[in-house]
């Protein structure tokens, strides 16, 4: 079994799919970072901010001064170019991974599944020789040139993509999504002005069709992409599906990332054609195809075993981590325990109104906080429905008002949350002293149970 896996892992394969993947990934991050700068989001997310909500375990990640935050984004552009051209590749991709992940870790309210995906893929790209062909590096150092590489270098990206889709599909198999067609029954009519098909969105049946199609698409698309005879049609579906959701919903560069990433499933010959086309389009010497075919360096048996073990560990983690929700009692849409890092995308319509009260022991007065003093609308929206962020905000308020000279003894909050168009309910008892609760992996028994 292990030996068969080994043969499979280290059978030589054309490097072309990986090279095209590298180029497209670099272009996508280039577009994403440029978009970020053009929209002035560096300012909005990282400069004009008073509170940063932290990831559990990453509380030590601090916001850098504005100059550095801008510098980081220009470096991300440089690193992206390095990835595209395979120039100083290891440095570029490592730099990209570190800086991008750092930016993501600063404030959890900006968490997006596809940013997590970009981080993961960037990390994986550090360990593969994506610059061994059709790159500045391989042109400058001919002994690095490879036209063939061990198969695992390409497989891991396919598997990771399959996991994303499959878990996204799995998450859609639930009563609300399939039997009530929620939240699409809310989101589609809000798009009734959409060109050509907008009028269809007023009918509940459309929401049902979209819900079921979406679930089946996510669940199956990975397999259809793997299977050669269905691959092309599957990829057309990927384009249609992401183009449609991208046009309907405010989801940024996500559709682009998925459409270009899934090209990796195509054959080596197909990717070779792309590279051939590119080298004709840009007739620079370092983009020319080498005349000799070079086989992969076969690593020692020990290193082969190591690669396989690391891959097994990596994918075990990525299969198990999204599944951790089974360990928690209650409705995780409501508690959001194990909700993040689980490829649960566009799955629920949830919003809250959170009113915080700060009790000052000195004056024995309780004040009502105006959240807009401290948070922007995005942060407030995210905080008001996520229990862990509510705890963090309570701690922030304590610190802030203590600096103002108050003896803050208690911070409590009245948080009403509406989930999938159900009347809003109290997320937890409004008399709880939030300062007495600390966040952990343990189930949040202080939350009210979600009742239909």
């Amino acid at each position, binding site marked *: 079994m292990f030996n068969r896996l080994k043969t499979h892992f280290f059978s030589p394969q054309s490097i072309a799919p990986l090279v095209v993947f590298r180029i497209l990934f670099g272009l996508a991050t280039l577009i994403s970072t440029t978009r970020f700068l053009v929209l002035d989001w560096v300012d*909005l997310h990282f400069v004009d901010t008073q509170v940063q909500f932290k990831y559990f375990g990453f509380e030590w990640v601090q916001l850098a001064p504005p100059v550095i935050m801008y510098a980081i984004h220009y470096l991300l552009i440089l690193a992206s170019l390095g990835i595209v051209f395979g120039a100083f590749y290891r440095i570029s991709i490592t730099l990209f991974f570190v800086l991008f992940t750092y930016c993501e870790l600063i404030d959890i309210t*900006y968490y*997006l599944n*596809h940013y997590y995906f970009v981080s993961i893929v960037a990390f994986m790209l550090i360990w593969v020789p994506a610059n061994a062909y059709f790159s500045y590096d391989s042109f400058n150092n001919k002994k690095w040139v490879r036209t063939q590489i061990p198969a695992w270098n390409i497989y891991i990206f396919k598997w990771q993509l399959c996991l994303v889709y499959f878990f*996204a599909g799995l998450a859609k198999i639930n009563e609300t999504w399939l039997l009530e067609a929620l939240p699409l029954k*809310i989101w589609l*009519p*809000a*798009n*009734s*002005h959409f060109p*050509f*098909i907008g*009028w*269809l969105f*007023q*009918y509940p049946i459309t929401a049902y069709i979209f819900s079921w*199609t*979406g679930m089946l698409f996510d669940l199956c698309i990975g397999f259809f992409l793997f299977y050669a*005879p*269905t691959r092309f*049609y*599957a990829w*057309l*579906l990927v384009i*249609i599906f992401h183009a449609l*959701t991208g046009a309907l*919903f*405010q*989801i*940024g560069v*996500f559709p682009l990332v*998925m459409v270009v990433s899934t090209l990796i499933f195509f054959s080596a010959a197909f990717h070779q054609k792309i590279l051939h086309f590119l080298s004709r389009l840009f007739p620079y010497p370092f983009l020319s195809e080498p005349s000799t075919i070079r086989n992969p360096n076969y690593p020692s048996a020990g290193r082969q075993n190591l690669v396989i073990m690391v891959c097994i560990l990596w994918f075990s983690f990525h299969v198990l981590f999204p599944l951790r929700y089974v360990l928690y009692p209650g409705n995780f849409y409501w508690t959001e325990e194990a909700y993040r890092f689980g490829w649960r995308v*566009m799955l629920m*319509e*949830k*919003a*809250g109104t959170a*009113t915080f009260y700060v009790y000052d022991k000195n004056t024995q*007065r309780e*004040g*009502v*906080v*105006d959240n*807009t003093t401290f948070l922007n*609308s*995005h942060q407030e*929206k995210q905080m*008001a*429905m996520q229990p862990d962020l509510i705890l963090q905000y309570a701690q922030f*308020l304590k610190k802030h*008002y203590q600096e103002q*000279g*108050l003896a803050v003894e208690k911070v409590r909050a009245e948080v*009403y*949350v*509406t989930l999938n*168009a159900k*009347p*809003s309910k109290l997320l937890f008892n409004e008399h709880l002293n939030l300062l007495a609760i600390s966040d952990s992996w343990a189930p949040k028994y202080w939350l009210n149970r979600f009742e239909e």
Partner: protein
Amino acid sequence: MGMKNKAVLSLIVGLLFIGSCKEKDKGMDASLAFDRGALLSNLASGMIMPAYDSCVFYFASLAQSIQQFRAEPTVLHLQVAQQNWKQFARSWQYAAAFNFGPAAEKGIKKTLAEEVGSFPVSSTKIESFIMANDTSFANFDRDSRGIFAVEYLLFGENESANEILAKYANQAPRFLYLLACANHIGLNLKLVQTEWKTYQASFVSSVGTDIGSSTSLLYNEFLKYYEGLKNFKFGIPLGKRPGQTTVLPKSVEAYYSGYSTQLAREHWRCVQLIWEGTNLNGKSGVGFKAYLDKVEGGKALIDLTLAQVKATQNKLDSLPASSLSTAISNDFNRVDEVHTELLKLTRFYKSDLSSLIGIAVTYSSGDGD
């Protein structure tokens, strides 16, 4: 499997095709979909433009009476100006709800409500600008001008008409400052009113729900306007902010005229009109309520909202006839109860409403699929 894919593909292509064909002859099914265009045009023509028109109209009377007062500084002319200020301040409550589009920030100019509607004003700053004979407004002290600066200059602080008059005697700079404040208000109002005439068409035709769409602008400002009533007209004067150690009755809107209770009632009424879609002239029309009526879970939210509106209305109705500042000092609990009910009402306008109608409240990308 290839067949299956082809089938799904042709189904989607087919849907797209049907969609593009049918749109022309079919259009919207009135019984099912909510027509945001109807809400926008109702609000624009029945509420927003009339609100600015009436504001400009009452401003003209105020400006005229100020001129008269200046020409002949008598108690009678002062009282006429005071009355006209009250009328104008009432009409302002309605215009203030639509602090977007032509009223939005432009360069260093803040929104209309911030430029002319800031309160409480600083009597110290106003007096020192008068002393310096400085009517340039070339500063960021927005609490030294606008509607409530005019109020201070016309009503004084706990002063009789004769005492106020005495302050103007042989005081050209005081008159000049009063006139400058009035001009500044008139100019800004007129600009927004005029711009709405051309903005109206694009406002009504932007029927999306994403950030920057008319529905989103209208809704987000509606919410801010509501929060303004709760936080600034009740919360701060009641001493509700953390760190406030005492009530601040002088922080109410319209402290000097003692007209705060009436203005708060108008503010509240305007919130209701927008939600219901009722026009300024009382004619019923399409508002957020009609919108809710057409969406998933909307009917339940209408009932919940109306119940809490009624509870709030009851508390507002039982406020004493005095000004809010007096009521806060003498009858704290009755004012506090209004604030409590307003707090309870917040979620029905905030997260519940925006969630059900799918309006963007934030610029950022959401989670993709």
